[in-house]
């Protein structure tokens, strides 16, 4: 711990903000977007088809 302090670092963890988390997820999401949309559409369509 002492050597970290000497390097000017702290052992205290930074807390991520909600904004950081949102941005991160949005970024990761963009990479897999199409697949998810197809799936959500599918579910609603199936539920609707139960009525037929």
């Amino acid at each position, binding site marked *: 711990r002492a050597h970290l302090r000497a390097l000017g670092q702290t052992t205290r963890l*930074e*807390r*991520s903000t909600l904004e*950081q988390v949102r941005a991160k997820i949005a970024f*990761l999401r963009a990479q897999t977007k199409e697949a*998810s949309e197809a799936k959500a559409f599918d*579910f609603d369509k199936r539920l609707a088809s*139960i*009525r037929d």
Partner: protein
Amino acid sequence: MANTTVRGAQAIHGQNPQFLVETVIRNRIYESAYWKEHCFALTAESLIDPAIKLRAIGGVYGNQKPTEFLCLLLKLLQIQPEKEILLEYLQADEFKYLRALAAVYIRMTFRAVDVYEILEPLLKDYRKLRYRDQSGYYLTYMDEFVDQLLNEERVCDLILPRISKRAVLEENGELAPRQSRLLAAMEGKDEEKTRG
């Protein structure tokens, strides 16, 4: 230090949140290579990367080795992200293992009413999940896993904190009866039949 709970953390169910994972398993996690190499200094943001790379849920396997899933869960208990952050994890539905991780954390730390209100909608998520235990891998589903979280005392080799039964909360007027989308769809069908 590496294994201490974040400063300013709230006690959960009257104790240090990390104690929600029993001591033997907790120590196994602290000793594990995955914990030391991949969980050190993770934040609520950087934890997302390993969480979406998870390939299974589960507790311990083999010779009492903790799964990566369990390691990340302990990490969450340690850093105690805000409630809103957990909801973000949960809503990112592309990442089913991140969602499963958030679901266990929510079950372990949120108020009973919130647990039901937040987790029950996931009972319609029928995606596959790998579950790893002593005997190997087997297949389960998000809805089945969430149902276990809501109804069983032990999941992933964790003793879940007690929560009030749904029926009790309903009687106290704290919770509305559960609406199943399937039931609603089927009732809609019946109505159409009687009309036609």
